[in-house]
């Protein structure tokens, strides 16, 4: 195949951008700039890894859930997150990268996942706080991504958002019960909010002015709203929710701003954000160990099922009975 000349590529890029400007989705077999493809692979696989690693902090509480009802709900939620990982991995595979490569990147540490999952779940209230805040923040981001320019990603987001709404509500329900409970339970709920609030705000990523890929991602409509816009939306919606619970958001600078028509809030500890992303969070090591162990311990199962399928195939094609 002849390589397209620079002129031809410039024309293709022009047509590609026009398609995006017309709000048309890009589909797997369409021509796309290599940087668009790479950008998507990075973002979508990061997203997929986050769904999968995100099962770990909550998963620790399945056996310790306070009632059978809570156990069934938590199990269903964690099961959903596994499904979300799958939707996203398969959407990423439409870009020509294999599931195995993506897993390798995660295990080798060259691919990132959401820093929030490197924090520990110390009490049952943390399960409530994760559903309420972490899933709540994820939904704000994911609703925006339902309009992303890449078709398979957008469709995966629509499916995921439909399933996510129960995650937030079950978390908020846990918080409501604790907030109306004994003094000790209320303290537990407050403590969880205190520990999860700031890491949740970090989920939206660096400020727009410091975000490496932001401008291009917005022009290509991979991202539809900026990190700071989405973070603001989350803060604005959380204030009334915390108030209803009678819990205090741990930010002295949090205050309604009449001119902006938004809540002002304090500065994030970006050193902490970077440190956790670079592997120095409280649970980074534990999380990666868990993923590595899962990968290694399931390897023989994948091998065995493949060997069995191959044997069946040979058996049916030769018509022999064992």
């Amino acid at each position, binding site marked *: 195949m002849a390589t397209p000349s620079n002129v031809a590529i410039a024309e293709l890029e022009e047509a590609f951008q026009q398609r995006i400007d017309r709000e048309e989705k890009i589909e797997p077999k369409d021509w796309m700039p290599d940087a668009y493809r790479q950008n998507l692979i990075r973002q979508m696989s990061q997203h997929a890894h986050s769904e999968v690693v995100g099962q770990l902090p909550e998963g620790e509480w399945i056996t310790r859930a306070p009632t059978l009802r809570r156990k069934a709900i938590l199990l269903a939620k964690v099961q959903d997150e596994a499904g979300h990982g799958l939707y996203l991995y398969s959407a990423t595979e439409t870009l020509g990268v294999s599931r195995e490569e993506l897993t390798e990147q995660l295990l080798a540490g060259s691919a990132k996942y959401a820093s929030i999952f490197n924090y520990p779940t110390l009490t049952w209230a943390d399960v409530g706080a994760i559903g309420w805040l972490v899933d709540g923040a994820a939904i704000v981001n994911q609703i925006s991504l339902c309009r992303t320019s890449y078709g398979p990603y957008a469709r995966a987001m629509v499916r995921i958002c439909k399933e996510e709404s129960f995650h937030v509500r079950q978390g*908020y329900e846990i918080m409501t019960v604790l907030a109306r409970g004994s003094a000790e339970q209320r303290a537990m709920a407050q403590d969880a909010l205190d520990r999860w609030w700031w890491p949740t705000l970090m989920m939206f990523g660096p400020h727009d002015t410091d975000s490496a890929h932001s401008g291009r991602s917005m022009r290509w409509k991979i991202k539809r709203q900026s990190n700071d816009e989405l973070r603001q939306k989350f803060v604005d919606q959380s204030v009334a929710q915390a108030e209803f619970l009678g819990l205090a958001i741990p930010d002295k600078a949090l205050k309604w701003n009449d001119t902006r028509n938004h809540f002002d809030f304090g500065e994030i500890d970006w050193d902490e954000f970077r440190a956790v992303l670079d592997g120095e969070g409280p649970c980074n090591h534990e999380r990666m160990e868990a993923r590595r162990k899962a990968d290694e311990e399931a390897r023989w199962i994948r091998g065995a099922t493949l060997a069995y399928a191959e044997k069946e195939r040979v058996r049916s094609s030769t018509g022999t009975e064992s």
Partner: protein
Amino acid sequence: MSKNLPLWEVFLRSRRGLEHKHVGSLHAADPEQAMQYARDVYTRRLEGCSIWVVRSADIHASQEGDAAAFFDPAEDKVYRHASFYDVPDGLKL
């Protein structure tokens, strides 16, 4: 007996951004012919902007008889739906 043309299942994307949906099947000798026929049979009125054809023999379907054992376990898990949870008045959740 002469050899029959194999059966193909046809999937159409009606509009950019939407998923392919099953619309029907047809007989054809190879993928190219199946594609041509699908175009002629299923998109005469601009019903689609993209076609997938898949050999019917490559589709494995769940069995009607297994439906109960297969799908019933989801029946009593109402808590998987957001509507299972009460939302306090005035709050958006």
